[in-house]
């Protein structure tokens, strides 16, 4: 069995930055009603940079691993740069993935975009 790539399995088994921030500056929840996947993304900002990011949620391995991976990737990054993060980048960061699951893989990114949009 090819299974999921090591990156997905690693983040699924040992999620990074899972939980809640005490005082997030930005926050958004995205859900995929059809599969029941839910992802909450929370950010703390220092100036125009992300100083802390955490996620919370439930659902399939891909959606949760993607959220975990995303929190690692965005820490320390300028907010302006994050707004430009493309779907394709997220997908390739997760390694090989079947097209039927891309909406799971992108859920965290959608939540991030939502969080960045709000009260800007």
């Amino acid at each position, binding site marked *: *069995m090819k299974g999921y790539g090591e990156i997905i399995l690693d983040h*699924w088994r040992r999620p990074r930055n899972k939980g809640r921030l005490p005082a997030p500056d930005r926050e958004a929840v995205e859900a995929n009603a059809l599969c029941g996947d839910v992802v909450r993304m929370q950010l703390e900002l220092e100036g125009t940079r992300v100083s802390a990011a955490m996620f919370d949620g439930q659902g*399939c391995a891909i959606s949760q691993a993607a959220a975990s991976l995303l929190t690692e990737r965005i820490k320390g990054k300028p907010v302006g740069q994050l707004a430009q993060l493309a779907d394709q980048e997220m997908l390739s960061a997760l390694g090989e993935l079947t097209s*039927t699951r891309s909406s799971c893989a992108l859920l965290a990114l959608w939540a991030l975009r939502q969080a960045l949009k709000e009260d800007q």
Partner: protein
Amino acid sequence: MDVHAVRRDFPILGRQQGDNPLVYLDSAATSHKPTAVIEAMAAFYRRSNANVHRALYELAAEATEMYEGARAKVAGLLGASAEEIVFVRGTTEALNLAAYTLGEARVQAGDSIVVTEMEHHANLVPWQQAARRQGARLQAVPITEGGELDFASYERVLSSGAKVVALTHASNLLGTINPVPELSDIAHRAGAVVVVDAAQTVPHMPVSVSELGADMLAFSGHKMLGPTGIGVLWARHELLEELPPYMTGGEMISEVHLDGATWARPPRRFEAGTPPFAQAVGLGAAVDYLSQLGLRDVRAHDVGLVQRMLEGLSCRPYISVYGPLDPSARAGLVSFNLRGVHPHDVATLLDQEGVAIRAGHHCAQPLVRRLGVAATCRASCYVYNTGGEVETLLSALDEAWRILR
């Protein structure tokens, strides 16, 4: 039934999925087609194609005869008469037709329509709409912990009367086969018309409308070795005679004036426009194929496979199975979950082994919610599946569990 001989009739089963042979366990969603069905339609287009009804030339007479011949075959399968068979796109259209026309003809403000908690959206949402249109009340009979219809609740709900009872013959998620003859009796005593969603039973076992005792029955061609684009609504002829049309247009009319129209008699009243006549020919070939196998044997084959699945799944402590545990109380499908693992992950990992199962809410969101889960995995089988394929499913599940737990 020689399953290996049967498999040779289904060209798609030769397909490789990556490095693995395709193990198709999603026939409850749609079945594959034998060469006889594929060729019947291709031959129709190559030799006999013409619009049916009304034309006076030989070619059209031939096409009409083949179309009506398919209707007779379907009637024969159900022990019904041909004029009781309405061709539609599928179960969904059949149930929309039933809900709209029965709503108009039989349901008034304040009346009650009864469904169950285990309905497919196709046998729930159209009744919600009919209830809304008529100002009627929709009541849903709950299920028991064991995944069966709560008989006492059913009797209680019907004791205060109802105009329509719409229920599934077999749940496409739980597999549960409902005792339609008994349920129909109770409904009839309460003055209700009984509409049965037979999408998961007509393809898989002998179904006789007279034994069933219901008033209307809906099913899809594509789940019974036939093509997409065709399905059947059966109804008692007196009932069809009483109902107004659903769609209107050509072929279903008697006389049309600019300010109004009168209707043809059933079944034509319910077949507006050009019907899916080539698909009817394909469905006729599918009925022939199934009849040759014998629906008793088809059912026995299903039960054998489901028994192996149930045994294999139940003995794995990381798996929960939904629905009745007796294989003979079930349609040819089993829903289950791996502890703490999302069904979508299971389906994706299995796909990489060539095993095709379905994962999701199976168009039964209220039922999934009732079970307290987000979704389930579902493996479903048919005439071309083997015991070996069930073993492949089980070991692929072990592997998925190893990876994801």
